[in-house]
């Protein structure tokens, strides 16, 4: 597999090089936001609404203000006039989208449990927390909107001034007549309704902010546990009204995000605003149960999915109607998230007609936004569950129905009905490899044996074939989707006088290992050691341009920019070498740190000489500037489309309803791999997160919209003990979209795994005539479904 065009005879790309980030992380040396010492900072804590929907009649903070250590207490009305603009939403998906303004602290009405109503600043944390109890807020309760059906019915309104709970209706239906006629003439129509439960992203590190005003000059440094220091800087400038030229944003070590830190949050705006107002450093650290309420949630959708197919099970059309829960307000990307999946409800199948509608509605719950996979897990779940239903209807094995519908390899680049161009793919060999490796036939035989025996431990096997789109991406396309930013990425490669290399990237890693991977790319191209390469990032004063890390974009876009900048700097070094050797640049080859004249043995010039020459500038060729540095801002021509097959094998205990995940195998095709160990790590974590959605996790609300599981006692985030060892494998289909041939892997695992697991559970329960179990497939849910099947006599013996 060729990964990087190499200037090295000792290739490191493609090897399982250990991560350079890990020693600091494993020894506790890494500095997370709470490790940053700022002795004169005031601690900020927020009083959060215990009511989901209420009018704030009064906020009395006089007692709290008198408590020891308390410096200031502000209500929402106290802070009116501090903001330049409301909290930003950067994705107005339709021209008439309704986006009611909201501010860091509510002044009139609270819209979810956890909405901030007052802020306390104190000289220490405990004093600040103690003062919360002394603030007296008088609420007038308002009727709540607690579920999507009620939201659509507009009986009660979250934002009465809008006259509706609907924020937007977004439609993608390139050829309605074609869809209608496919459904009219179809032999099989499969209709399903799926619920994507709300999920709490639960990054290992909660959020935190430290806003530091500089003593003179009106400058500020803001540290935040964020995925997006660059976007945050621009947005803070626009909302707080501090010039972008006077604001530096730093993301220190960040303990995971999964999309939940791809946002601009109230606390960031508030800390900066109060640092300006009091001219004091302000710090805030989120508590875990606060994180459950005040950090965005993921998913929260009802999906109505219809497939039209001919007698052989060949799909003629897909029609999807989605209702998506926005929560109480729109956050940075809230409305766009379900639409990221809106182009992919036909999966990796060749489907000629397509229709997708999404209605985004407000509810009195925590706002939703991007959570690992963002839209694509939902789409994959819908199509892969529907494929199993179609297989049953047609009377063929789930593997066979997929074979019949795959996009054929010769059709790439494939123009999909919804309007994307899939870069590359070869689906059938990937599926066959997965079936072979798991021993699909043997598992089916064992399943039959158990059924014949009347075993109460039912075996189930579930397939999930997926394609996703990542590497966000062409700025033009994002523009056509009304997204308020581009999709490019920037990189600078600088060869220092001693021939050590600085790489500056606009991506912002928070666990992914960019420092390792980026250094591997540069090491191979320059033929030098990774140890001689330093990777700088996540500080707007050091890496001024970038669009940060989300949507599995960093390697495909940012890594490619690094590669291209390395090429560019090498071109410049070549000019210097050619000048010194008195040959023309075309006559030079480059390998392992040396330029050599083609054919003539012995004549060579070291990269280190070029580095020093570029620095001293004593004898540079005509028109060549001093310094060896190149910057590339790369805007890819297309998204990338990783794909693969995941297979789950489960055992369901009929008596308790408990599902045991016995085996989990994945064959992923993420294009070329820079560091397969990092790829495996991303896949494994993703699978665990997806299985968590399938079997364990759900943000549960009562009818008054109280979150019932805000701690890890109730919110069942699984641990390694709940999983078997995953069996991982790959096929490699390079992407033609970028110079590295890479596709992206950050989200694949959690996109593929929920339907694999639920398909397996439903397969295990086939004897009972059970056709679906909503996620999470808890033991009680499974047991109840079995009981119901017994009562209604659907059991097929």
């Amino acid at each position, binding site marked *: 597999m060729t990964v990087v065009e190499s200037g090295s005879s000792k290739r490191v790309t493609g090897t399982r090089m250990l991560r350079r980030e890990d020693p600091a992380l494993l020894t506790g040396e890494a500095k997370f936001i709470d490790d940053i010492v700022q002795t004169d900072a005031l601690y900020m804590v927020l009083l959060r609404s215990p009511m989901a929907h209420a009018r704030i009649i009064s906020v009395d903070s006089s007692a709290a203000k008198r408590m020891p250590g308390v410096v200031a207490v502000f209500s929402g009305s106290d802070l009116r006039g501090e903001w330049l603009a409301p909290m930003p939403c950067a994705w107005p998906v339709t021209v008439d989208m309704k986006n009611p303004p909201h501010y860091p602290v509510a002044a009139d009405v609270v819209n979810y449990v956890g909405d901030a109503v007052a802020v306390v600043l104190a000289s220490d944390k*405990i004093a600040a927390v103690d003062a919360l109890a002394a603030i007296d807020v008088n609420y007038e309760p308002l009727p709540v909107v607690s579920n999507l059906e009620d939201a659509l019915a507009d009986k009660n309104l979250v934002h009465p001034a809008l006259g509706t709970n609907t924020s937007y209706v977004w439609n993608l239906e390139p050829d309605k007549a074609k869809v209608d006629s496919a459904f009219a003439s179809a032999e099989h129509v499969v209709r399903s309704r799926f619920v994507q439960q709300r999920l709490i992203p639960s990054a290992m590190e909660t959020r935190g902010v430290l806003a530091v005003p500089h003593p003179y000059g009106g400058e500020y440094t803001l540290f935040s546990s964020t995925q997006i220091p660059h976007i945050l800087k621009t947005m803070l400038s626009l909302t707080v009204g501090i010039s972008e030229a006077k604001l530096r944003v730093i993301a220190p070590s960040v303990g995971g995000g999964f999309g939940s830190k791809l946002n601009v949050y109230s606390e960031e705006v508030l800390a900066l605003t109060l640092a300006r107002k009091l001219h004091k450093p302000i710090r805030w650290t989120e508590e875990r149960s606060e994180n459950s309420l005040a950090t965005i949630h993921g998913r929260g959708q009802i999906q109505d999915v219809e497939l039209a197919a001919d007698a052989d099970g060949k799909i003629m059309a897909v029609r999807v109607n989605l209702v998506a829960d926005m929560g109480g307000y729109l956050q940075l990307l809230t409305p766009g998230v379900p639409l990221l999946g809106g182009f992919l409800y036909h999966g990796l199948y060749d489907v000629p007609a397509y229709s997708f509608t999404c209605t985004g509605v407000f509810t009195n719950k925590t706002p939703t936004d991007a959570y690992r996979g963002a839209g694509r897990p939902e789409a994959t779940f819908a199509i892969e569950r529907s494929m199993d239903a179609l297989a049953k209807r047609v009377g063929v094995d789930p593997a066979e129905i997929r074979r019949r519908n795959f996009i054929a390899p010769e059709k790439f680049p494939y123009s999909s009905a919804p309007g994307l161009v899939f870069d590359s793919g070869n689906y059938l060999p990937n599926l066959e490899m997965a079936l072979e490796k798991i021993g699909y036939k043997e598992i089916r035989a064992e399943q039959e044996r158990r059924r014949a025996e009347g075993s109460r431990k039912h075996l189930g096997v579930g397939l999930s074939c997926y394609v996703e789109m990542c590497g966000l991406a062409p700025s033009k396309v994002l523009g056509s989707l009304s997204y308020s930013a581009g999709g490019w990425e920037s990189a600078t490669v600088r060869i220092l006088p001693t021939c050590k290399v600085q790489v500056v990237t606009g991506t912002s890693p928070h666990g992914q290992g960019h420092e390792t991977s980026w250094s591997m790319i540069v090491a191979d191209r320059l033929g030098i050691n990774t140890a001689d390469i330093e990777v700088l990032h996540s500080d707007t004063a050091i890496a001024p341009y970038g669009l940060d890390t989300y949507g599995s974009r960093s390697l495909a876009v940012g890594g490619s920019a690094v590669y291209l900048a390395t090429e560019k700097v090498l071109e410049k070094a070549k000019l210097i070498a050619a000048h010194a050797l008195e040959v023309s640049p075309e006559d030079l080859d480059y390998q392992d740190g040396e330029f050599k004249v083609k054919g003539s043995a012995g004549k060579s010039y070291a990269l280190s000489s070029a580095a020093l020459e570029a620095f001293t500038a004593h004898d540079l060729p005509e028109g060549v500037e001093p310094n060896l540095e190149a910057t590339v801002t790369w805007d890819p021509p297309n998204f990338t489309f990783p794909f693969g097959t995941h297979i789950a094998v489960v055992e369901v205990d009929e008596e308790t309803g408990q599902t045991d995940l016995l085996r989990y195998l994945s064959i992923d095709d993420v294009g070329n791999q820079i560091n397969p160990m990092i790829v495996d790590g991303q896949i494994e974590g993703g699978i665990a997160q997806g299985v968590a959605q399938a079997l*364990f996790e759900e943000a*549960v609300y009562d009818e008054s919209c109280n979150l*019932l599981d805000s701690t890890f*006692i109730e919110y*069942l985030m699984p*641990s390694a*003990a709940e999983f078997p060892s995953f069996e991982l494998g790959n096929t490699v289909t390079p992407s033609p979209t970028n110079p590295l041939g890479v596709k992206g892997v950050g989200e694949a695992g959690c996109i593929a795994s929920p339907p694999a697991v639920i398909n397996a559970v439903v397969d295990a329960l086939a004897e009972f005539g059970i056709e679906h179990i909503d996620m999470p497939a808890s*033991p*009680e849910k499974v047991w109840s479904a079995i009981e119901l099947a017994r009562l209604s006599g659907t059991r097929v013996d």
Partner: protein
Amino acid sequence: MFPASFDYVKATSVPDAVSILSSVEDSKLLAGGHSLLPLMKLRLASPSMLVDIGSLSELSYIEDKGDYVAVGALTRHHDVQNSRLLKSEVPILPYVASQVGDPSVRHRGTIGGSISHGDGASDLPAAVLALDAKFVAVGPKGERVIPASQFFVGFLETVLDLDEVLTEIRVPKFSGGWSYQKFNRRAQDWAIVGVAAVSNGSTKVSLVNMGSTPLRAVGTEAALADGASIEEASSKASDGIDPPSDLNASSAYRRHLAEVLVRRALVEALR
């Protein structure tokens, strides 16, 4: 999550702990802290003073006393789990201890803390209840011995006085069969329902998380005493019991689980 402010003192001996408890209002013993500290952080408990008995090594022992094994109240779950004496004389107890939480919980949490906390959802209280263990408590008026069957009285409530220290757990040796069935979702979780069965002449069965205290499955025990089959006896697992409903399980599902798990426990214990 920050607890309200409190004072802290390290007790030098059991009598010292008793005397602080009786003189300082709202003071509370701190053993492993793995039940008390979470409550304090959630501000569901706010004692004025913590009396730390965590380093009283004289309360950490496992000793052979002839027909019973004496376990010091401060013995960590990890030590119960790995005790050779208990493994041979009261094998159910080390097994149950191995099912508590995760390794870090088992290295900090103590058997005395778990029993004094009296949580109906905890594993060890139900096990000692099925074992008909006895507890030794020391207070200002001296020492008393309390049978497990009289110890647990309500939600996080036991017969211990506020100024009493539980010092020892006396578990009778037995040679018959036993079983512990713990049903939960994640390895480190409390049981959604748990069942302990000990067969030593008669068969005793206790239930975890079926009520506000650990409970004996009296319906099952009576049926077995009357010679009922395992199937029949397990169908009476929740007779007279009204199990709670929560996010993990409705009351009806708990009843069902109790029946399944009691049956499995009896099959294993009476094999």
